[in-house]
């Protein structure tokens, strides 16, 4: 993240690589930062926090952060808490799936149509929280 973008809300997905909902969480973040709230959100590699990158740690400690996890292990949330990140909200793709039982995402590498629809629905929920955080 560039210094000129410090006012943005940082949205971090788990990016789980083994199940479709990890890909959904990742896609939801891209939907937010590239489309739904592109001016006011940004992301950062979760892996940088695991690595202990100092610049990344400063970003998550000095900015409001939202995590989006695919599964109940909540890796994004737990890793952010582990590094004392400024966590203001956390979401789980599995919870949004329960509200959209007609959607059954199956693919991991490239999301199928149901996965993409679920990602958009998840991003819409998070976008509402971003607006709340920013007082919009």
């Amino acid at each position, binding site marked *: 993240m560039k210094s000129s973008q410090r006012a943005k809300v940082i949205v971090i997905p788990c*990016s789980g690589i083994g199940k479709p909902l990890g890909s959904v969480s990742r896609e939801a973040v891209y939907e937010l930062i590239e489309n739904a709230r592109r001016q006011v959100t940004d992301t950062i*590699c979760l892996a940088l926090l695991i690595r202990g990158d100092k610049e990344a740690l400063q970003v998550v400690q000095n900015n409001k952060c939202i995590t989006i996890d695919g599964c109940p292990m909540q890796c994004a949330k737990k890793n952010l808490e582990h590094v004392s990140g400024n966590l203001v909200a956390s979401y789980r793709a599995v919870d949004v799936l329960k509200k959209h039982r007609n959607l059954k995402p199956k693919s991991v590498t490239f999301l199928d149509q149901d996965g993409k629809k679920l990602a958009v629905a998840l991003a819409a929920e998070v976008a509402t929280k971003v607006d709340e955080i920013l007082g919009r």
Partner: protein
Amino acid sequence: MNSSERKVGIVSCSGEGCVEGTVSRVATRLVLEKYRPSNTVTICLPLFLAGGTEERAFATEHSTITVDGCEKLCAKIGTERHSGKVTSALVVTRLTGKTHQTPCSGRRWSDKDLNLSEKVAKQIAKEVDKILNSGGN
């Protein structure tokens, strides 16, 4: 244990911050699904911290290849810090010689990106074969 039963671990950085992170992720999935499905397993990198002892034992139980998008080497450093020494470490930018340093999902994926992922996947598969042929677990 014969070669079809051996499992090599592959850990991808999955970096959200640059397109090469997406390439490393897709390449890893291609190896798991297409190139060496019988001989490879993966684990989510963040699970080393969020999970338990079983997850942290991954790199000690499997010969492990890390796939990083950039020179930050998050997958390699994270795996070695929390799980165990890796057998091989690949970096996408070393294969391409350049970096985009911008986030990119699979939504705007071009044939060029997919070709690069295939190239990285084949490189990973070669490393898998080297490990299996050397008798690694």
